[in-house]
């Protein structure tokens, strides 16, 4: 039975271009207090466009209705649980939004003098200190814009250090359970990728690692807890194997939400890691960004961090560009400052103990899901899990129902799906991360929904294969979209109107 939702009316809405008519406006500029310049004279007639062809002409009320209507077609954390594994979709506190919009936070120009930017720099310094306390590492850059960007920065740091020792080496080791960004990053940093197989527990295979780590290996990129949600129990030995051969341990911090206040990567052998502020530290995902991807390192990598670095000179903060071994910039200015503000506000709200308590609740929620759902779904690896749990669709597949079908049916029950078919080491994976900000009631509703779907898979599998049924938009033709890409609206080509 579906308990969490029932249907309600949603508004139809055209594309904005279809609401446009010549002469409508949604703006007003102040009257010009200087003489108007003729653009053809100032820039040369050849440089001046006649008009922006097909650009919309609409009023303010139409714009606000347009986006409000569109917004109601989205699922969101504010509507309920979002159990995407490794995505850490937790509540986004609104005070964080408020403080990021205070004038002195939202409007500083990155090139304004340091003397009138001390507050912004103080915020950056305080976040740096908190992240070092949390990771147990020695230095951090806040410049990378997101997780994958942080990975790239981190691997460049490894490369720069190894190069300074005379040999950048050739390979990065990536477990088969890793996120796709890891191998893509290694390539961008000029390394070849060697995929390594997980052991029977889905974890790093220490014996195999000892055999393959040689002086051609620059680093191992490992997600810990792994994408199975399992802490790499041999992480310390793995670090020792790597370090003995002069290679480094890179940690993908996507799953750091399992460790904050509990365990520090710096203590278990990690040399360099990135942190996803938009996961662990609750800065809003916003439908796919912005994020923040700080990179924290042990002291041997610190000289190579991107410029500029924050420095204390007397009683003032200043930006230090004089770092001869630095890899250079990875982004203009100082990173996604507005995201940093939100992350710091999150950390301040929790405090040291609060962060640990949040972690414990994240572990509790994931374990609760595991124990409640294990009777209904196949659990391919039975190691103790941390903040997420991965099932497989093995039982349901016998009826032809796959993880993607279960996920789509979950939508009818009022939930966003879990992560589908990842990690790929689990055939037909259902990867669930509830996070700490779900109540027992919301979890129970989710558990009920999953159990109900598991029964439907037995009794009426066809219902799942064509789900969702109750949404305004039913299953979309993704194959068709890729076969004949339409990536922009054009006045003559878009025949159909919005859903009627």
């Amino acid at each position, binding site marked *: 039975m579906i308990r969490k939702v029932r249907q309600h009316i949603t508004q139809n809405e055209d594309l904005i271009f279809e609401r446009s008519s010549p002469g409508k406006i949604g*703006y007003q500029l102040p009257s010009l207090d200087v003489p108007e310049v003729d653009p053809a004279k100032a820039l040369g007639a050849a440089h001046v466009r006649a008009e922006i062809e097909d650009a919309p002409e609409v009023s303010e009320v139409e714009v606000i209705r347009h*986006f409000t209507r569109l917004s109601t077609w989205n699922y969101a954390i504010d509507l309920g649980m979002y159990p995407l594994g490794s995505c850490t979709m937790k509540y986004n506190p609104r005070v964080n939004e408020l403080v990021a919009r*205070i004038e002195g936070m939202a409007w500083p120009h990155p090139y304004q003098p340091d003397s*009138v930017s001390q507050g912004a720099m103080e915020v950056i310094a305080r976040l740096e200190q908190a992240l070092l306390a949390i990771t147990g590492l020695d230095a951090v850059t806040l410049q990378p814009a997101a997780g994958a960007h942080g990975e790239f920065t981190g691997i460049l740091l490894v490369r720069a250090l190894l190069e300074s020792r005379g040999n950048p080496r050739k390979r990065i080791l990536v477990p088969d359970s890793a996120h796709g960004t890891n191998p893509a990053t290694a390539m961008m940093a000029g390394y070849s990728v060697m995929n390594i197989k997980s052991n029977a527990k889905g974890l790093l295979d220490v014996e195999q690692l000892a055999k393959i780590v040689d002086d051609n290996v620059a680093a191992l990129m490992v997600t810990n807890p792994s994408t199975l949600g399992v802490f790499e129990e041999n992480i310390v030995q793995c670090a020792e194997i790597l370090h003995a051969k002069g290679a480094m341990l890179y940690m993908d911090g996507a799953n750091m939400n399992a460790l904050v206040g509990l365990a520090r990567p710096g203590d278990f052998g990690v040399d360099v890691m990135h942190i996803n502020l938009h996961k662990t530290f609750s800065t809003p995902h916003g439908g796919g960004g912005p994020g923040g991807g700080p990179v924290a390192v042990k002291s041997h990598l610190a000289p190579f961090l991107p410029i500029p670095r924050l420095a204390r000179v007397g009683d003032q903060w200043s930006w230090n560009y004089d770092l001869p071994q630095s890899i250079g910039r990875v982004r203009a200015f100082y990173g996604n400052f507005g995201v940093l503000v939100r992350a710091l506000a999150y950390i301040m709200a929790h405090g040291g103990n609060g962060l640990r308590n949040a972690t414990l609740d994240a572990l509790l929620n994931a374990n609760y899901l595991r124990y409640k759902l294990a009777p209904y779904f196949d659990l391919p690896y039975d190691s103790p899990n941390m903040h997420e749990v991965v099932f497989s669709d093995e039982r349901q597949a016998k009826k032809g129902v796959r993880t993607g079908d279960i996920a789509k049916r979950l*939508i009818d029950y009022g939930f966003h799906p879990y992560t589908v078919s990842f990690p790929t080491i689990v055939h037909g994976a259902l990867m669930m991360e509830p996070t700490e900000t779900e109540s027992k009631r919301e979890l129970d509703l989710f558990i009920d929904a999953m159990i109900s779907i598991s029964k439907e898979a037995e009794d009426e599998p066809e219902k799942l294969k064509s789900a969702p049924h109750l949404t305004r938009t039913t299953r*979309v033709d993704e194959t068709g979209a890729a076969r004949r890409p339409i990536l922009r609206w054009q006045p003559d080509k878009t025949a159909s109107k919005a859903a009627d």
Partner: protein
Amino acid sequence: LRYLPKSDSERQEMLAACGFSRAEDLYRQLPDQALIHQPLDIEPGKSEYEIIDYFRDQSARNANGYASFLGAGVYNHYRPVIADVVVSRGEFLTSYTPYQAEISQGTLTAIFEFQTMICQLTGMDVANASMYDGSTAVPEAAMMAVRITGRNKILAARTVHPEYREVLRTSLRYQGLPVSEFGYDAKSGLLDLADLESKLDDDTAAVIVQSPNFFGIVDQVEEAARIAHKKGALLVLVFAEAVALGILEPSEGADIVAGELQSFAISPSYGGPFAGIIATRDKHLRQVPGRLVGETTDTHGNRAFCLTLSTREQHIRREKATSNICTNQALIALMATVFLELYGKAGLRELALQNLSKAHYLASKLKPRFTGPFFNEFVASGNGRSVGDINEDLLGQKIIGGLPLARFYPELENTVLLCATEMTKRQEMDHVAEAFTK
């Protein structure tokens, strides 16, 4: 803690359901060496009021209520109120990347409109769903050109934003893709086309130019494109001041456009978050990095949108992906989308005209260092005074002066890059002019 929706008795009940007796059981498997044995060195949790107070205090230590003449890639433009109203809706703010199309049509439709308007503005056929910012879009465009041409050298104009060029160098250094630079004409500030021609060779994948360039000058993009194409290289056109697109003729010759949208309702925020774009011609579609939204239908035949062509991306292709980018700047791109729809056809033009007019008013009182045509920024010399002194004087009057250029261009000692926008008042410009002539 107010963000954790559980009572202690519920915790106990849940622990018991898992067969645990205490919270410590939840991490019993961790090796002792990994465990923390003392509390994190972070102050105890604070109330909402204390948090707001802290950020207000820090805000007060930053410039507040100053007039600013800084541009250089980050511009002081008005942000319509409804941009924040829209992005503050929880359905946009707290949703994930729209992989589940059936419950993400709001975000997907908005991105489709975004892609459309970026095409309209740039004159390109395809635009992606956003990059992190302008600076990181540039190396992505360069790598695209490398994949398309099969060549390995990049040639960038020195008038491309200096920090974008730094990011370009960092990003390409280890991929065997050498980056070199060509100059600008010392008098006009325009591209030195002869220098470009002399440095181009058969291994050059891309020529990268910016217009308006870092000095604010509307540059000779078509000439550069012709020269690049003659040698079989692509032309990558960069923009940092998106407002200029409202008045500038889209480039005929550019193959890839990479730019920064901060000017479209995105607050300066001490340098980010912003949103970058990559746009290109249809024939290069398969080499575009990042996410793309396409139109399709659902099982009822209704128009619907979804993420598409993901076989280019890291989560499918892993080490063979066009880029490692995953998270991009969706919410920031949404601000720009709201802005573009509000201003629309007439507003974007009028806004550009106001910027042009303001900067030309200011320039009429000073002597621009270069003769090339400029949009809303120009370079001015100290006119006998040290630009440091000028800026110091202005700061005393709560005016942040132009950016001294010597840090990026040693040959432009004692010059500043000044910017005026629709937010700049005539009186403030008169003050600046006075400071230069004192």
